[in-house]
């Protein structure tokens, strides 16, 4: 009993000693953190706060704005184009998560399949990701051309009529989403490829001894061990698609009739074409807020998944 007490005392002493030591270290640590922290504050936190402040003003960008409180946000809720943009953004998110990532995974798995010349394809698959978005956009605008486009010539071979891909609101969104998938699936392929390399060979050997077939091996070894990569890819995909802008701007500019309008393109129009900086800031802040909430939700879900004992 006595010895236990004594031991407890020494433990508490050593922890208090430790904590005072850490306290001293705090300064050293903060010294090392400082450069990154300052950059983070100046280029991330400060713009977020100032965007929110701008969003409370009716401001055209150069003259002094008038304070309007949450009026911009109220207008936003009644703005049908905003809701169209949000719906379109949701489509981008859904395609990224449920088409891009699975496709990336399939491509990564194919790279490990015993097919001759697969190394060649590993480079070919990766090409789209290396190209500049503007170049990709222009390239596909030509390919989608309603009369002389390669894609229409191709579907003509199968007896289909020409489709004016980028000219109707409903086909335009699909057409651009195809390009988005084409461009970004290779990125997830590389992530998954790296993760698959990291899975220990022993697990597969053990599964072989147990007589597992390829499908079981995939669902019981590969997929669970890839889960962390899938989670982080999802976050990247979701946040990336919420702030999507460039390819849509280049290919359709949000048209026709707002059929491919995104929060990003709508914000750009309000800010730099209509000079409604306050309103544009409100859109920007809503984008930030949605991305924040979604990311937090994913992290919470991941936390509980890990708690349940998953890898």
């Amino acid at each position, binding site marked *: 009993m006595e010895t236990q007490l004594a031991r407890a005392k020494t433990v508490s002493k050593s922890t208090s000693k430790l904590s005072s030591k850490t306290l001293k270290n705090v*300064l*050293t640590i903060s010294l090392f953190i400082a450069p990154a922290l300052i950059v983070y504050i100046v280029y991330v936190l400060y713009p977020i706060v100032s965007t929110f402040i701008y969003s409370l003003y009716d401001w055209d960008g*150069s003259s002094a704005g008038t304070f309007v409180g949450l009026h911009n946000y109220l207008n936003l809720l009644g703005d049908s184009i905003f809701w169209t943009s949000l719906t379109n953004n949701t489509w981008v998110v859904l395609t990224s998560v449920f088409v891009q990532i699975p496709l990336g995974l399939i491509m990564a798995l194919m790279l490990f399949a015993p097919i001759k010349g697969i190394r060649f394809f590993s480079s070919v698959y990766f090409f789209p990701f290396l190209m500049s978005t503007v170049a990709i956009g*222009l390239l596909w605008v030509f390919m989608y051309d309603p*009369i002389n486009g390669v894609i229409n010539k191709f579907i003509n071979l199968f007896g289909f009529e020409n489709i004016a891909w980028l000219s109707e609101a409903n086909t335009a969104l699909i057409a651009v989403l195809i390009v988005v998938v084409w461009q970004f699936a290779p990125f997830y392929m590389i992530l998954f490829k790296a993760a698959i390399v990291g899975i220990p060979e022993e697990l597969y050997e053990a599964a072989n001894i147990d007589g597992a077939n390829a499908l079981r091996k995939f669902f019981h070894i590969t997929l669970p061990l890839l889960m962390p990569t899938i989670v982080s890819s999802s976050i990247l995909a979701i946040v990336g698609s919420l702030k999507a802008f460039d390819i849509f701007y280049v290919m359709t500019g949000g*048209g026709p*009739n707002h059929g491919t309008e995104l929060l990003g393109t709508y914000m750009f129009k309000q800010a*730099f074409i*209509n000079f409604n900086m306050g309103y544009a800031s409100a859109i920007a802040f809503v984008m930030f807020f949605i991305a924040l909430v979604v990311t937090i939700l994913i992290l919470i879900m991941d936390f509980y998944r890990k708690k349940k004992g998953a890898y």
Partner: protein
Amino acid sequence: MKKVVSILSLCVVLLLAACGVNGGSSSSESASGQSGSGSESEGKKVLEFWHIDPGEKEKIYKEAVDRFEKKHPDVEVKMLRIPNDAYKQKLAVAMSGGNPPDVFHSWGGGWLKHFVEQDKVLDITQNTDFEHFNKLALNNSTFNDKVYGLPLSMTIDVVFYNKEIFEKYGLQPPKTYEEWLTIIDTLNENDVIPIALTNATKWPGAYYLMNFASRIEGPELFDSAYNRKGRGFDDEGYVKAGEYIQEMVERDAFNPGFNGVPYDEGQGRQLIYTGQAAMMDMSISFLNNVRQEAPEFEEKLDFFVFPTVEGGKGDQTQIGGATGPVWSVSKDSKNSDLAVELLKELTSTETAQNYTDRTGSLTGVKDIVPEDPFTKRFYDVVQNATHIQMPYDQTLPPEIAELHKDTTQAIFGLDMTPQEAAEKMEAKAKEVLK
């Protein structure tokens, strides 16, 4: 140990302070550096001059600048070309950042007016020689009877057509809308696309709405609607213009998928060059495109002025046009007197003559007759014009201008009835134009 820590913390504080001070001072330094360059650096006064045109036009500006520098040996002009797409944003940011160029490019109209209203543009009425400029062109940069910009160039929109195709099917350039429809039907029967339209960019389609509205109700309609003098953008004339457009769309007058085809990339022009399409309503800069992209096509090229409509108040002497470049001086300029002198050189008779002869464009300067026979025909159209309608999207304030282009595109796409589009425009006009 304690000493080390305190020294370290002191260092951190100093570092932070240094960063802060440095950041602050460096920005103010660059600002003063910029304005310093505007006043006097190395004993020479510096004027900053922003424009957007590459190639031959840039050379002509450069020559004008050289002439200016010869007359003013103590001044150095810094020319900066900013690509068209980025220009509007860049100038808007420079203006609001309080660091604008001394002389800058614009297209006159609502966009320039936006900056005038913010008190960013110098009033140059006193220095303007009204006799020197085409009045219709100068009007586009005159607000409340004050001149804020001098137009070097102007353009008009006409309907270009392929002579060879027209001859082949025995067609004559139409004078009226009815004749135009007959031509469209004939071409469709012969598997030629009647009109090439590249409406992803939205402004090519807007030509039709503006021209129809002007043919139906005369140019007074827009002036009245814009200046809120009784009539509105929901006027019967606008609804009818939209109906004409939709009638053309339903007659397959345009290439399929026109709302998704951008102009600059050139697919639309390709349809004309290859003879797949017979006509295109475009600004006269199209001639330049032809000369650069398909010089052999020029001999087949001809044009007619937008046809009239039955019972319409407008006629073919009322044409659609635009100005640009329009040169202005920013109010914050340190050497505004010199900047105005530069403006005069940039719109001098010599510059204008060079401009029209070497780029096949028209100028905003009076009595500059183009040498080129094709351009001369455009010049004659302008000489006979009783009214030049500047594009709505450059005249109206940006927000409503954008709506005008969006609704017009929707009319073309049959996504919106002309009535709905007109009501939307009027609702926005009530909100924005007071």
